[in-house]
């Protein structure tokens, strides 16, 4: 049976991709952000995954408003990193694990989640940047399963729905026969807002609440409506839905390995939180 190691939740600000391309990891502006990944990679070296499930939101690369899914799961052999129009470099194609993808799809549809399946899928910075942060040396030595959550067009799925969706994915992974070690990446957030007169809105208090709750009380977040999330975290702070989904996948009891909340990075309260799964209650 496969085993979920834990999760790495991280912001995916496009500027990070630019900083990587320009080798600015030691620049005073970027160093406090990048330094969080040094112990993260040490933890990862002790827990090397075979597969990474990346929970993210598409930023207008693979999905347009003609076919906008609430939840989409990639089931491709390979995922292409493609031009997003404003200039961050692409990365080489990423290898998929379609057998695991289909096992997850079977599980979640059985659990009454109405996913869109994607046998071809372009992946944007929300997938590539976290992988580059974890494996800066080159192509990540893992296969991936991308899981896209709609944080773009309202109505968004509620935090409660996202947590349940993640839990269903987690059960499907733990029921998957091959003995894979699976890492979750939760991509996005924390509080930020790009548009309107409230552009630049940041809410450290709500971010702290989220970070604390995500360790072992994710149900503290499931009472919020998506409207409340937008109010408290900003329009793009809705990306916390990816973190909530990812926490659902981890399931059970977690230990916080590390946390690195750092302002300023671009427009966003950047955050990194590593959780290790320490026990799954059998239901």
């Amino acid at each position, binding site marked *: 049976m496969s085993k979920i190691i834990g999760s790495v939740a991280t912001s995916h600000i496009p*500027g990070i991709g630019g900083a990587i391309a320009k080798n600015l990891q030691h620049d005073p502006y970027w160093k406090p952000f990048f330094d969080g990944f040094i112990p993260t990679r040490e933890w990862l070296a002790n827990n090397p995954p075979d597969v990474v499930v990346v929970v993210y939101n598409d*930023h*207008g*690369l693979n999905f*347009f*408003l003609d076919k906008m899914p609430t939840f989409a799961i990639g089931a491709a052999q390979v995922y292409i990193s*493609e*031009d*997003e*129009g*404003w*200039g961050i470099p692409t990365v080489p194609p990423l290898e998929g694990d379609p057998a695991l993808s289909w096992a997850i799809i079977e599980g979640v549809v059985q659990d009454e989640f109405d996913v869109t399946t994607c046998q071809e899928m372009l992946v944007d910075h929300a997938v590539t940047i976290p992988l580059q942060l974890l494996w800066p040396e080159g192509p990540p030595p893992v296969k991936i399963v991308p899981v896209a959550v709609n944080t*773009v*067009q*309202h*109505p968004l799925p509620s935090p409660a729905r996202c947590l349940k969706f993640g839990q269903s994915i987690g059960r499907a992974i733990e029921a998957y026969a091959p003995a894979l070690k699976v890492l979750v990446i939760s991509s996005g957030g924390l509080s930020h*807002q*790009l*548009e*309107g*007169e*409230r*552009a*630049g*809105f*940041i809410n*450290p*208090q709500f*971010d*702290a*609440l989220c*970070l*604390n*709750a995500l360790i072992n*009380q994710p149900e*503290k977040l499931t009472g919020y*409506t998506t*409207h409340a999330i*937008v*109010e408290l975290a*900003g*329009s*793009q702070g809705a990306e916390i839905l990816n973190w909530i989904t990812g926490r659902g996948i981890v399931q059970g009891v977690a230990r916080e390995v590390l*946390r*690195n*909340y*750092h*302002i*300023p990075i*671009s*427009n966003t*309260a950047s955050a990194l939180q590593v959780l290790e799964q320490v026990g799954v209650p059998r239901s």
Partner: protein
Amino acid sequence: MTTAPIPGTPVFTGEFAMKGYALNKMCFSLNNAANRAAFLADEDSYCDKFEMTGEQKAAIRSRSVAALIAAGGNVYYLAKFAGIFHLNVQDLGAQQTGVTVEEFKAKLNGYARFNADVNTGRLSNV
């Protein structure tokens, strides 16, 4: 579902998705380098391919983020339009809040004082 508006915060609901469809479709097309070149070569005729409204065409010409949002633009698609002019999200933020980019950055940096308390878990009402 009716919910109270959030001040200064456009929410991209179905209403805006409907209104902004053509504008967002044009912006979405700018993922493609050849399309970006075509836009730069002849902006008006490029836009004409997308059945945009007069308001949307004027908003594109104005380069005003507020006007683009009001015309139904979604910031994730608009980012591709802004990218053509090498504008990043801080430039957009400054423009929308009526301050200089330096002032906008300074405001954001002001939140850095919370970093330590968030990292230690002290700042939270959970």
